C-alpha cells in the first residue's frame, strides 16, 4: 500500500493579532506549524500503513523553512518527505497543480490523504482539486476510514447525514479533525527521523516551472474583536447581580 499525505505549514491562527492602525492582520513573526487537520491525515495514514505495510510519503509545498516541520511528520511515522519550495505568487490552482505533479512523479500511489481544509485559510480546495487533476475518485470529510486489500470504505460527515462510500484505488481522501487523535512522537522517533530523507524537488521537477495564480487577493482586512471585557471576580452573589443588571441595560433580557 503506497500512501501520500499532503501537509501544509501554516501560521498558528491563535497567535494572530490585528494592527489597530493599519487594520491588517500581523503575520510576520507568528509561529508556524503543520496544519492540525493534516496531522489527522498523517495519523490515519500511519494506521493504514501499520495494517497493510507499504511506503508513506509526505509532500509539502511551502516556504524554505517548512523543511523543519516536515521532520515532525517523519517522526510521527512517514518514511520520506518531499519539499517543494513554493513560487512567489500562489493560489489553490498553483499549489494543487504542484502537488498533483509531485504525486505523478512519485508514480505509484494507492491513497492520497490530506485534511479537509487548512486551519489558516480553511478553503478545503486542495483535496478535490488534486483529485480532479489526477482524475481519481474523492472521499471528502471522512470521519472514519477502513482500508482493505483492494478497496477503502469510508464515512463522509455531511453535518445532517453520514454517507458511507466505497472506492477502489487510487483514491483521494480528506479527513475531519474528529477522525482520530494524532500521536505525539517519542524522543527516539524524533531522533530517528533525522536519518529519514527529505527530498528537495524544484517546480521544474514536477512540471510546474511557469505557473501563474488564477486568483488575486486585492485586500486583507483585519477584523478586530472589540468587546467590553468587563470581568466580575469578587463575591459570586455580587457578580451575578451586576451581570444581570448589565444584561438588562443591554436590553437583551425580555
Amino acid at each position, binding site marked *: 500500500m503506497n500512501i501520500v499525505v499532503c501537509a501544509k505549514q501554516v501560521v498558528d*491562527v491563535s497567535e*494572530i493579532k490585528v494592527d489597530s492602525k493599519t487594520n491588517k492582520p500581523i503575520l510576520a513573526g507568528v509561529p508556524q506549524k503543520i496544519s492540525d487537520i493534516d496531522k489527522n491525515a498523517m495519523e490515519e495514514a500511519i494506521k493504514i500503513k501499520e495494517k497493510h505495510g507499504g511506503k508513506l510519503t509526505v509532500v509539502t509545498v511551502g516556504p524554505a523553512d517548512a523543511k523543519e516541520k516536515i521532520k515532525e511528520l517523519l517522526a510521527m511515522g512517514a518514511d520520506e518527505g518531499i519539499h517543494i519550495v513554493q513560487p512567489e505568487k500562489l493560489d489553490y490552482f498553483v499549489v494543487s497543480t504542484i502537488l498533483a505533479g509531485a504525486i505523478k512523479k512519485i508514480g505509484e500511489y494507492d491513497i492520497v490523504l490530506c485534511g479537509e481544509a487548512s486551519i*489558516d485559510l480553511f*478553503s478545503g480546495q486542495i483535496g478535490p482539486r488534486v*483529485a480532479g487533476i489526477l482524475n481519481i475518485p474523492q472521499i471528502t470529510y471522512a470521519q472514519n476510514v477502513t482500508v482493505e486489500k483492494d478497496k477503502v470504505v469510508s464515512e463522509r460527515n455531511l*453535518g445532517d*447525514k453520514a*454517507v458511507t462510500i466505497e472506492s477502489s484505488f487510487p483514491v483521494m481522501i480528506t479527513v475531519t479533525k*474528529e477522525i482520530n487523535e494524532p500521536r505525539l512522537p517519542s524522543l527516539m522517533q524524533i531522533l530517528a527521523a533525522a536519518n529519514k530523507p527529505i527530498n528537495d524537488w524544484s517546480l521544474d521537477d514536477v512540471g510546474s516551472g511557469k505557473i501563474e495564480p488564477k486568483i488575486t487577493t486585492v485586500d486583507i482586512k483585519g477584523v478586530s474583536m472589540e468587546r467590553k471585557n*468587563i470581568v466580575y471576580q469578587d463575591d459570586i452573589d455580587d457578580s451575578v447581580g451586576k451581570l444581570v443588571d448589565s444584561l438588562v441595560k443591554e436590553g437583551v433580557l425580555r
Partner: protein
Amino acid sequence: MVLVYSDNKNLMLELLNKGSELAKELNKSLTAVIIGKDDFSKEYIAHGADKVVVAETDLDQFKAEECTDIIESIVKEDGSEIILIGSNKNGKELAPRLAAKFETGCITDCTNVYLKDKKLTAERIVYSGNAIAVEQFNTTPQIVTVPSKVFDPLPKDDKHKGEVVKKKIDVEKSSSKILKVQEMKTEGANVEDAEIIVSCGRGFKDKNDIKLISDLAEALKGRTVGCSRPIAADLKWLSEDHWIGLSGHKVKPKLYIAAGISGQIQHIAGMRDSGVIVAINKDPEALIFKSADYGIVGDLYEILPKLTDAIKTKMG
C-alpha cells in the same frame, strides 16, 4: 452567462437572488442547473432563472466526480462566465474539482459577492475570523461557493418567464459506490436561528450537569443550548447540531453565554458575531474573557444556579 447550482433547494433560491443581480448588471442571462429529477424548475424560474437545465441522469445520489463532469459539460455549452455553487459539503467538494477541470480560480465560503469595476469580487473569512480576504479572478469561468443565509431569496414572481431544457448528459461513471446514507443523530437544536444561546464546554464534569445550561436557557426563554467541540465531537454528550465553532455552526444570537469554555480561536470563530457575549470560567486567564463583554470568574457549578434564579426573578 451566470450559472447557479446546489443540491439544496433553499440554497438555490438564495443563489438565484445574487445570480439575477449579477446577470442584470452584466446584461447576461441566468441559468439554474438541476441534476436528477425535475422537481423545482418552475419555482426556480419564478425566483429569477431565465433557463433551467435539467440534467436527466440515472445517477441517484450525489457523487462529486459525476456531478462535476455534468456541470462541466453544461458550462461549456452555456458559456458560463460566473458560476455560483451552494456551500454545503457537497458543493464544497464539487466546486474545486470543477475549477481544476477548467484550470481556473475558485473562492469558497464567500460572505459577500459583488461586481467592482465590472470585476467579480468575493470576500471570505480567513485566519479563523481574524481577517477578511477580498479576492478577484484572473480567468474565467469564475467559480464561487456561498453558504446558506448569506443572501435572502427573491420574492416569488410567477410572471417571470424562463425555459426548461431537459438533457441527457452522459458522463464517465465514478468507480466509487455509495453503500449507505444515514441521517445523523440530532436533537433538533437550531443554533443558527437562535436569539439567545447558552453554551457549555470542557469545564463541565458530567453529562448530567448540562441541565445547568438548559435551566439557564429556559429561564432566558431562549431554550437553545450550544456547546464547544469536545462536548459534541469527543464526548458526544450533545449531538452535532449544538456544536458552535469553525467546523460546527456559526451563530449570531443577540446574547451568547459561554460557560466552562476556554475560548479557543476555533470556537470564537463560530460565535464572534453575537450581540452581547458573556463568559463564565474559573480561570481568570481564560482566552474567552478577551472575547467577552461581561464575565464572571468562578465555579460554574456555583454561578449557574444563582444566575438562573436571578434571571427568573428579573424576568418574572
